[in-house]
């Protein structure tokens, strides 16, 4: 199910949002999996550090990916919108196997890249098999409707989330990161509620969702991935709501997935629990009642 390598193949590449703070040294399961997916020692990976305000973020990931065993790493240090029209950088994107977007500020990332040749190239290259990963802000920026900011808390409140356009690598899902660590259920619920037929993916730190071309999501990492399915969701208060007021929502489906779990995003069903060593410890605590 790992998308085909040859260019020109119609199989789209993986989209891999990561919840931030991924392990980079001792046990970098998420990054190692990404490098392996891209071809391991043959992989050419582009790093986009634009979200970060630190100057050495690109170099840091260059060295991390090097240690993990990626064949070649190119840093694409977009600092202004005109950089995103540069032929030199677009040529790099045309020959990479994977792209990695770092954390930082998703608004900075999308303000610089949206509607540029680079943003178009990212979508086209992904459609043709290039895998795109993003951590923290880089994960948020992947969805069409991007969470630009908001407040923490479990109860959705009107105005607690700000949405802005993202890259559109993932259409029907809103991504949120540092999920369990920063108490972001309320803002993701508010975001999902404002997008008809939408759904939300909340990623814990050191945890990634590997979304394949068949729209199967596989969890990799030490935390969990929370799926909020808003397909049958409705505003329970049935009235307009003032800013800051609690929002009533009914019919939300919630799934908590852990390492090895595979979930079909199109049909909203669990595909498998995974066959890894950890999953052998798993047992069914509860059976389907229906």
């Amino acid at each position, binding site marked *: 199910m790992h998308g085909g390598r040859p260019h020109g193949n119609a199989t789209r590449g993986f989209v891999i949002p990561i919840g931030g703070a991924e392990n980079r040294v001792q046990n970098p399961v998420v990054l190692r999996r990404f490098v392996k997916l891209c071809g391991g020692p043959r992989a050419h990976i582009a790093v986009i550090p634009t979200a970060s305000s630190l100057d050495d973020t690109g170099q840091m990931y260059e060295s991390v990916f090097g240690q993990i065993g990626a064949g070649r790493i190119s840093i694409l240090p977009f600092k202004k919108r005109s950089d995103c029209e540069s032929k030199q950088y677009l040529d790099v994107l045309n020959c990479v196997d994977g792209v990695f977007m770092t954390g930082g500020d998703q608004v900075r990332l999308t303000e610089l890249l949206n509607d540029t040749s680079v943003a178009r190239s990212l979508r086209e290259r992904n459609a043709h098999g290039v895998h795109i990963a993003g951590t923290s802000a880089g994960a948020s920026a992947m969805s069409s409707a991007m969470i630009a900011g908001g407040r*923490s*808390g*479990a*109860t*959705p409140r009107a105005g607690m989330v700000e949405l802005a356009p993202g890259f559109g690598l993932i259409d029907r899902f809103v991504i949120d990161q540092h*999920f*369990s*660590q920063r*108490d*972001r*259920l*309320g803002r993701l*619920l508010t975001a999902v509620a404002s997008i008809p037929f939408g759904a939300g993916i*909340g990623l*814990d730190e050191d945890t990634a969702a590997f979304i394949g071309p068949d729209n199967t999501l596989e969890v990799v990492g*030490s*935390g*969990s991935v*929370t799926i*909020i399915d808003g397909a049958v969701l409705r505003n*329970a*208060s*049935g009235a307009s709501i003032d800013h800051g*007021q*609690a*929002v*009533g*929502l*009914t*019919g*939300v*489906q*919630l*799934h*908590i*997935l*852990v*390492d090895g*779990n595979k*979930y079909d995003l199109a049909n909203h069903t*669990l595909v498998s*629990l995974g066959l890894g060593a*950890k999953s052998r*410890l*798993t*047992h*069914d*605590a*509860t059976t*389907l*009642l*229906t």
Partner: protein
Amino acid sequence: MNGSTASTVDARGFIVAIGGVLPRNGEIVQRFADLCGGKCARIAVISVSPEIDDSGARYERAFRELGVGRVDVIAFENRAACESAESATRDALARAHGVLLVGQDPALLSQTFSGTAIAQQIACRNAEGMHVAGACAGASLLPRQTIIGGAGGTTPRADIVKLAPGLGLMDQLVIDQHFRHQDRLGRMLMALTYTPHAIGIGIDEGTAAFIGPDDVLEVVGGGGITIIDTSRLQHSAIHAERKHAPVSMIGLHLDILVEGSVYDLSAHLASMHS
């Protein structure tokens, strides 16, 4: 459904879970006082030792200011006091239209009350029609299982929640409070995996769940109530050998209700108040 005191024989009294502390709960206290009969009501406020926790006195004052006919404050020092209560105390409970259990520390409340003669009397009187409310930690104590502690975070992990026995007024219910402010989804979900098919009720501060004898829950107050329904859970797995590992749960149903909405606990159905 906001009927005054239950008049029909055998209708159980309301069970009222109040999130958070008093100053924000004026509307809720008023509602409970009215439910118990207002000026004619006899309400018993039950607490642990007032030296440890003075919330009993504050609720007493609130009920008096609302003109409640008679307010008794009964403090129990420990379990022994609950087992050998004076006849005057038992008499006050026998005649009360409503009881409010207050407290800040759910572990202390569970140690003091759960399984005692006083807890049994409260449960019997509730079955006969007396209304029972719990505020703050007292709210958590109302069902059979009580969450007495745990860590924050939205992801359920095996070691994230501590459970203890509650009053047992309702079986298939887990109640947690301070829900919005203290990031308690994970520990609620974990409690639910230990109590299959129970419904989880997370109550924000300044908000209450009024659960009628028909098992319909009504939201009162300014915050939200998060209802987590595990009855359609397709899968839940605990890594037996990894206490801090996250736990997967597939097929949870979530409703977030605000004032004006109701939830039918038997039918697992949320709707607008009609």
